[in-house]
């Protein structure tokens, strides 16, 4: 466990409280947490994500004061929020844009983890909790979008819940029963909408709990850093989280807020689909059913596979495979900074994901379909072939001996001090 300086309660009251519920100790240890000195701005996205979660909870609970989860009233209640409720437009647009911002930050945060090997031992559990958070976020966002009960809401729920009917090809009747159980009826209707609202309200609190576990797991091992090297001298290679990283995170959050505010106040509907401003019509399918941008890569993978069950497995598999990365990657080197060959494959992965996103918005035919198949194959090959094989054959570039050395550029005497006694000032 990584420890900073021990908290000492200074007053009689804080001593009394510390013996009964050490929350001040908890907060003090969090603020003093020894954090590597060399973290770059990619490490600010954890804090940004926490703020996104708070914003979504806050605006969401306010929206729930005015929203009605009934098929006859839902769409109108959203317009009531936009037009009648004081600042309702602000709450709705912030929540809507906030979901996109949440995923933008989550994807950057995840790619940071892949690039710097933050998933490698001893951070495997930290990584897996993160993947779980991503999956619960996806479920939450999907349900939230459905609540508007516009054309896209209704048909997205119909399409995605219908996926489970693919289980009929494994065991006759199983898929249909499960789909009816999810729907609460014979089609997507009021029963479905009501339970989507209930679960959409629930899951963000599940996410909050998972985030607590995620930060706890992080504090056990300590942060990774851009070199991927372990911290060996806490005094020289780390600084207290507060004030250094609180201030840096605050600055990063302000820049992020600028982007957020640009969308909310100038182009709030840019990231959305106009079709969702039409009320849901169960008798008319929109010409193009397209999910929100953050789901497009998964949508592309779903439609790339010719078989229905195969497509479903591939789409879920694209998420599930992330759990196994700590064991799929055989490299002894954490950070891609020192992996010259892997670096190309990493960017190939990024390009594949972005391309799949683009292709998810297109009709799955002709060259779009073949491109989607190509990038889907690369996506899985990256995890199942590149990561296991490359780690064994790649020669890393020369690495500094320690984090200190990477910062100061000076060679440290390899005296095996083990970080117990800091070197005297020169």
């Amino acid at each position, binding site marked *: 466990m990584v420890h900073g300086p021990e908290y000492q309660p200074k007053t009689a009251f804080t001593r009394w409280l510390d013996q009964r519920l050490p929350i001040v100790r908890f907060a003090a240890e969090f603020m003093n947490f020894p954090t590597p000195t060399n973290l770059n701005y990619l490490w600010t996205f954890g804090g940004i994500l926490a703020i996104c979660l708070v914003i979504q909870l*806050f605006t969401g609970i306010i929206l729930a004061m005015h929203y009605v989860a009934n098929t006859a009233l839902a769409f109108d209640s959203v317009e009531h929020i936009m037009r*009648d409720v004081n*600042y*309702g437009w602000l*709450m709705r647009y912030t929540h809507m844009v906030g979901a996109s911002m949440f995923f933008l930050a989550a994807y950057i945060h995840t790619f940071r983890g892949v690039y710097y090997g933050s998933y490698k031992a001893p951070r495997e559990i930290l990584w897996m909790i993160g993947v779980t958070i991503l999956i619960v976020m996806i479920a939450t966002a999907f349900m939230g979008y459905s609540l508007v009960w516009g054309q896209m809401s209704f048909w997205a729920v119909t399409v995605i819940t219908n996926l489970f009917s693919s289980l009929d090809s494994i065991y006759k009747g199983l898929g249909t029963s499960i789909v009816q159980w999810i729907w609460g009826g014979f089609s997507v209707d009021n029963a479905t909408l009501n339970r989507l609202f209930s679960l959409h309200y629930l899951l963000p609190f599940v996410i909050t709990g998972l985030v607590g576990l995620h930060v706890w797991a992080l504090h056990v091992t300590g942060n990774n850093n851009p070199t991927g090297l372990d911290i060996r001298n806490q005094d020289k290679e780390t600084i207290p989280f507060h004030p250094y990283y609180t201030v840096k995170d605050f600055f990063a959050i302000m820049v992020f807020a600028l982007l957020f505010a640009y969308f909310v106040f100038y182009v709030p509907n840019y990231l959305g689909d106009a079709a969702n401003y039409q009320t849901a019509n169960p008798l008319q399918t929109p010409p193009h059913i397209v999910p929100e941008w953050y789901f497009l890569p998964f949508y592309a993978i779903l439609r790339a596979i010719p078989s229905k069950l195969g497509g479903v497995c591939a789409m879920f598999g694209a998420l599930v495979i992330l759990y196994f990365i700590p064991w799929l990657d055989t490299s002894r080197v954490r950070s891609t900074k020192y992996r010259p060959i892997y670096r190309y494959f990493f960017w190939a992965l990024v390009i594949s994901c972005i391309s799949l996103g683009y292709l998810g918005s297109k009709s799955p035919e002709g060259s779009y379909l073949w491109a989607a198949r190509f990038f889907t194959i690369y996506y899985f090959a990256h995890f199942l072939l590149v990561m296991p094989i490359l780690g064994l054959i790649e020669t890393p570039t020369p690495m500094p001996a320690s984090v200190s050395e990477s910062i100061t550029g000076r060679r440290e005497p390899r005296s095996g001090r083990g970080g117990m006694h800091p070197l005297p000032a020169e």
Partner: protein
Amino acid sequence: MDSTVDDHSDDVTRRDFIYIATGAFVAIGAAGALWPAIDQMNPDASALSLASVDLDLAPIQPGQAVTVMWRGKPVFVRNRTPEEVQKAKVVPLDDLKDPDARVLGVTAELPATDENRTKPGKENWLIMIGICTHLGCIPKGQSPADEKGPYGGWFCPCHGSMYDTAGRIRQGPAPRNLDIPPYQFVAGTKVKIG
């Protein structure tokens, strides 16, 4: 090593300025972000649009009464007979439990005379909020079959408050006369409440 550098630790530094400026902007930003969150719970535009109700009085015969909804509350509109008006006018102010006319929207303290509780030239029309000032039940007396109590006005079945023909509390646990909402007679036989 003795200090040859002057001690400037008491001077206001650039850092102090930055701390205070940041703190001030955070406070302003937080207030700016918090206000919409609080204001959204205030009545919204659709609730405020229910602020007035129009009513055509022509179908209401002398001795008849109707109840309309205004801002979610029942409003008693009675076309009083001359006897009912007279009965209200002769009551001395000292006999009243509540001497205040209880006209909403008027800041001056008006005595609870029948004239103050109606509009000049239209004293047969009594328009009041039909909520007992005790604990909020709706008093009986609107329909001809209702119990009107000994003062001929309204009778609250919950705890026995008794109102006279001007809607003033005479006996029982209610502390105040029935409130008079803001209203105006508009063209012809219509009245606009609120």
